[in-house]
């Protein structure tokens, strides 16, 4: 309850509920908002799944008439995916599939070997026409090349090269022990806390102010951002940080909350919100999954099944042609994450075993436990949601948090594109489980609205401060720069225009790097 992902989860002071900092949900909506209240934010807790968005994902409206196109192409972001992968370390497949690109410049690492259930899944999926390939994961499978990458990533910048080289040398390749979710003592996995912030601090150009809750962006009489007002939570006093440039990256919804609360005579509806679009276009990821028991996996010879503790193999979306031909009742794709086998026994192990053993207890329970241990698998779909007018956040007119800051109110509705997709997920997974000779746990639900995760539950909220190439239909330009306030930028998931089935972290990082390059270029030419 205090630590929703377990006592040892690397995120502290965060969760589905943050004491003293409520949010509200509009009548008829269902939405869960997970927040990380610590340095490094949400990178302290994530699956490390780092797939690139593909060329289709940037132009969804052009392809099927739904949603909104991004103001940039895959080719424009591609160099930043390369750089981000080289900086943080990502293992992945080595061949591009349709709309599932990999690096053309060797910036990704070799994947670890598949585990037993990975191989069994791959074998089963082959005849079903479902691809199973190495998953893109932000975990080092080898030492980073600290002599090569810093000079390539930061040409002409000896300070950046030095701190990044030192940081890379401190990181070790995965030692296939200790779960990623608890944080990595050898820095083999990517989280900002261990990979980005230490070298940034080593430049001596960074001051970190923690326990600071931003109330609003301040502006001068000409409408330029001058800094932020924040509350020092430890003293409960208001403070101001002055800035030439303000970059918001508070997580998508929190960023739009700051903007909506930054009201002034120039910006009565919140900063950069003349269009009223801030808060609109909120998206999460479609999630649905089922598990099953596989007799073939019973009584497997004891062996180490852990690997990186993250995905080794996965299934990227594969039915593009069927979708284009109108054969599916949903417009966008999903990828499949799966797992199982002889993992470290954890809380909940053998929850439900009674259904396989007629309620065994005593010595028979121990025998059944030995037999069934490692024979369970799960499949989870993670799919694209199309933005809709009913899913957004705004300020609750009557509720404030303990700092006196008006809180967000969430409005949420899945469309049939999402619920039909969820139904397709569980139907497909049941096919795979049966193909493995196994049995699905429970009945397979045909109604997607009954299996789809709640809005926010997958913790991939993006959108709400959309980028675009038209100031009337977007809040930010193609460089994540406010149309209205030239020295205000957004560098988290809020600028997202669509939410492909590709987990957002790597795209957030790549986009932020591109935004930073733009800021530097604009500073150089004196434009901001």
């Amino acid at each position, binding site marked *: *309850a*205090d*630590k929703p992902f377990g*006592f040892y989860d*690397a995120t*502290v*002071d*965060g969760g589905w509920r943050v*004491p003293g900092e409520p949010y509200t949900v509009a009548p008829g909506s269902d939405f869960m908002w997970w927040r990380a*209240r*610590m*340095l*490094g934010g949400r990178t302290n807790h994530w699956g490390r799944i780092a797939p690139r968005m593909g060329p289709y994902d940037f132009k969804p409206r052009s392809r099927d008439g739904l949603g909104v196109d991004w103001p940039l192409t895959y080719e424009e972001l591609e160099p930043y995916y390369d750089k981000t992968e080289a900086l943080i370390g990502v293992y992945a497949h080595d061949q591009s599939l349709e709309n599932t690109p990999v690096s053309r410049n060797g910036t990704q690492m070799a994947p*670890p*070997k598949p*585990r*037993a259930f990975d*191989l069994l899944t791959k*074998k089963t999926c082959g005849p079903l026409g479902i691809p199973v390939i190495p998953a893109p994961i932000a975990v080092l499978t080898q030492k980073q090349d600290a002599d090569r990458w810093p000079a390539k990533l930061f040409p002409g910048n000896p300070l950046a090269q030095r701190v990044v080289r030192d940081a890379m040398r*401190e990181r070790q390749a*995965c*030692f*296939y*022990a*200790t779960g990623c979710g608890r*944080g990595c003592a050898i*820095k083999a996995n990517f989280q900002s*806390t*261990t990979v980005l*912030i*230490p070298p940034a601090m080593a430049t001596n150009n*960074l001051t*970190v102010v*923690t*326990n600071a809750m931003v109330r609003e962006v301040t502006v001068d009489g000409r409408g330029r951002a001058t800094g932020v007002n924040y509350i020092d939570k430890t003293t409960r006093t208001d403070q101001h940080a002055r800035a030439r440039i303000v970059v918001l990256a508070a997580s998508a919804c929190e960023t739009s909350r700051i903007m909506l609360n930054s009201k002034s005579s120039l910006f009565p509806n919140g900063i950069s919100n003349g269009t009223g679009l801030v808060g609109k276009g909120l998206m999460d990821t479609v999630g649905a999954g089922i598990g099953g028991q596989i007799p*073939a996996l019973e009584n497997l*010879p*004891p*062996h*180490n*099944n*852990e690997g990186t503790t993250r995905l080794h193999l996965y299934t990227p979306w594969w039915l593009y042609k069927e979708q284009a031909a109108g054969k599916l009742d949903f417009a966008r794709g999903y990828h499949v994450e799966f797992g199982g086998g*002889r993992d*470290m*026994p954890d*809380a*909940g*192990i*053998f929850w439900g*075993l*009674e259904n396989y053993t*007629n309620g065994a*207890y*005593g*010595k028979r*329970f*121990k025998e059944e*436990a*030995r037999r069934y*241990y490692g024979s369970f698998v799960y499949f989870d779909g993670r799919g694209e949601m199309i933005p809709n007018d009913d899913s957004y956040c705004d300020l609750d007119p009557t509720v404030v948090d303990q700092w006196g800051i008006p809180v967000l109110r969430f409005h949420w509705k899945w469309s049939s594109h999402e619920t039909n997709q969820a139904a397709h997920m569980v139907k497909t997974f049941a096919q795979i489980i049966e193909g493995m000779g196994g049995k699905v746990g429970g009945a397979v639900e045909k109604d997607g609205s009954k299996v789809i995760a709640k809005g926010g539950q997958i913790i991939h909220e993006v959108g709400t401060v959309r980028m675009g190439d038209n100031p009337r239909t977007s809040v930010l330009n193609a460089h994540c720069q406010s149309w209205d306030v030239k020295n205000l930028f957004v560098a988290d998931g809020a600028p997202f225009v669509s939410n492909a089935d590709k987990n957002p972290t790597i795209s957030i990082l790549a986009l932020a790097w591109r935004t930073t390059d733009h800021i530097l270029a604009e500073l150089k030419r004196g434009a901001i």
Partner: protein
Amino acid sequence: MERRDLLKRVGMTAAALPILSHGTSKVPTQSVAPQAPAWIGPAGTPSDPDLVRPKTPWEKVLTASEMTTLTALCDAIIPADEKSPAASQVGVPEFINEWASAPYDYQRGGLVQIRGGLAWLNTEAIRRFTKPFAQLSESERNLICDDICFEPKAKSEFKAAAKFFDLIRDLAATGFYTTREGMKDLQYIGNIPLQKFDGPPPAVLKHLGLA
């Protein structure tokens, strides 16, 4: 560590992962910079607990007589055999007491169910055999357990007790199989630092028809 670095880290208490002190594993002490606020480590709140020295911040509430009954039940579910000890030998009843005493809504509901179930067990044992559950012989215990070990097949008068039994079985399995002895029983292999990960050995591939 240079003092300038230390000062920058002051105030990071909410995010005080020791890992942040990159380049050294030493935690800064007050003597380094006595005038600066000390590194006080995790805030010590429930959402920011001391992970290195974990402690349970709540009192365990089950009484000694409830624990006696619970211990007998745990050992009826997970008895000693040739491969591993009984549940009570690795602290499972104490683990369940800690779980049931937690101040969260879900566990508060669980506590009511567990207390009610333990009371029912004794009442039933006395009704059938004129002695409390913990004093029953194995065959007497099994006569009660057989009636409540599987809720879908339990008679209507045993449904509530069967739900309770299932909760204890789940919790006992969690408590038991997450110990060194329980992991050994399952022949779990892992969480060992490896230079490289080789994937499943040939015997596993053969077992799966993948060799």
